[in-house]
């Protein structure tokens, strides 16, 4: 595959990454909806903007790519709110890119969106070498690719991700979200097992030549064993073998995940702000 050159202009790079992430998420959503029609979800792609409407099992509407075209996409937001209310979504979340049209600030404020959290976006040029993991995996651990077509395996991996991310009381919607992400043939999910127990998971999806790494987590009892480092490199190798030229991953700021990502050579290119608007009271 001939890959497009990596844009040096940060806004162009932001657009490319947002479109890729939106496409990858939308593909997964649409595949899930087709195989689970009772979920009643809807994925909409409108140029650079992607809207993923609430599922019955995960009643949150999500938007990507707002304000990266011409203007702040106020009409897209308003339609997403209307449709979200109609579908019974509990909230809308938007990943707000700093390179979005500045007018988006006012648009979101007028519509009573409130800030939720920051998320760092990192990129890595896959043409270069990735530093090796600091240490090998312990002998009792093995890294392998998940069989996305095995519902039992997918469910087990999804539960691990949900527990690692949200704790022992992880909501059913989180597990559903994990199943959605890991069951897609367009994604590759890597797990680290300790005998029959999955200790860590990580997925990668590819859109054109952009690899998007996500759904990454390690159970507390398996942390500090280098699992994330090995799963990161496995996903990068997988992406490179399939023609990806750039990898991107998000991380909560100031966390061990951030340090793992940076050790693998990723650089933070911008920070997004996640904003939300509850809908349930509308």
């Amino acid at each position, binding site marked *: 595959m001939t890959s497009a050159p*990596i*844009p*040096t202009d*940060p*806004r162009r*790079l932001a657009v490319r990454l947002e479109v890729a992430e939106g496409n990858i998420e939308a593909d997964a959503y649409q595949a899930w909806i087709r195989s689970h029609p009772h979920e009643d979800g809807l994925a909409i792609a409108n140029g650079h903007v992607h809207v993923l409407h609430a599922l019955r099992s995960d009643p949150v509407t999500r938007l990507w790519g707002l304000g990266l075209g011409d203007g702040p996409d106020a009409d897209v937001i308003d339609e997403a709110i209307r449709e979200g209310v109609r579908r019974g979504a509990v909230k809308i979340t938007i990943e707000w890119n*700093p*390179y979005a049209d*500045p007018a988006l*600030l006012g648009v*979101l*404020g007028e519509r009573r969106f*409130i*800030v*939720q*959290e*920051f998320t*760092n976006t990192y*990129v*890595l*040029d896959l043409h*270069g070498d990735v530093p090796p993991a600091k240490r090998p995996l312990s002998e009792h651990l093995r890294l392998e690719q998940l069989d996305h077509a095995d519902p039992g395996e997918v469910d087990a991996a999804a539960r691990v991700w949900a527990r690692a991310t949200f704790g022992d009381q992880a909501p059913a919607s989180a597990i559903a979200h994990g199943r959605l992400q890991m069951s897609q043939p367009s994604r590759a999910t890597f797990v680290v097992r300790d005998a029959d127990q999955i200790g860590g998971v990580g997925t990668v999806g590819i859109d054109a030549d952009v690899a998007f790494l996500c759904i990454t987590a390690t159970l507390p009892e398996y942390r500090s064993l280098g699992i994330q480092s090995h799963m990161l490199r496995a996903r990068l190798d997988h992406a490179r073998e399939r023609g990806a030229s*750039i990898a991107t991953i998000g991380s909560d*700021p*100031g966390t061990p995940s*951030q340090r793992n990502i*940076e050790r693998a050579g990723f*650089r*933070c*290119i*911008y*920070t997004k*702000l996640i*904003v939300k608007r509850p809908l349930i009271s509308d």
Partner: protein
Amino acid sequence: MDCDSRGVSSPFPALPDPPALAARIEQSIAEGVAAAARAAASRDSTSDLVAVKLAGGWVVAGEGRSPLARAVGLGFDGAVEASMIDSIEALFRERAQAPRFDVCQYATPGLLSSLASRRYVPQAFMSAFARVIEPEERISGAPGYTPPDNLTLRRIDPSDDALVDVAVDVMSRCFHDHAPAPDWLVRVTRQGILQPRAVTFLAYLDDEPVGGGCLAIHEDLAMLFGAGVLPAYRRHGIQGALIRGRLMWARDCGATLATIQSAPGAVTERTARRAGFEPAYTKIVLVGERNA
């Protein structure tokens, strides 16, 4: 080195630990903003500017829409308690101002959620960029961005009132394309130039001042700020020359780290990236209600 084709990799030395770097820069900025406010208040008895150290950072309130007025550098030394936020809000509201907080992604997460629960709304994104300065570094310009041969940078003496007036006039007009600049912008520009530790350079084409920029050095950190070029003289490499000139000054003063802030995607960002600056962190400016 082609500064313009760095893409996602960089030939420059890597920046230090991001959270620690962000804390250091934000708290240095906070010190600078507070110093500027105190200096301004001491020069002008009619000013209601006040600077108060709170929650590990500084809160500057007063003077209406002054960009100095905000809480900055908070949240790096642990939780910011609700009572502290109440106190900060009171400082602003006593001066008929909407409370304004700069919140960085590496500040304690509770600060963002506390302000969100108080219905603060985002007003602006700001990107902070940083670069290492090597002691013997030859700071060169980006290929293809050569300034005019008749450009010189001259450091101004802050005790020379006439020259300060020239700098204030030129630099305030750089940020307001339609002359004359509004009073608040002129006042803020003067405050920046006259703040303690600030060094100001004017850019001249022959004997005509066409732009300027400031820096302040705190320990070994050089903070570049306030740079601009008059509209008629833009796109001639002068902005880049102002950055290089200040970096060289900073290097010669022993600074080993430099930082500059920009709205995402603005000219300042592009010029800074060509000069070797990399993204260090992001912050969001959050504004609350003017009345409780």
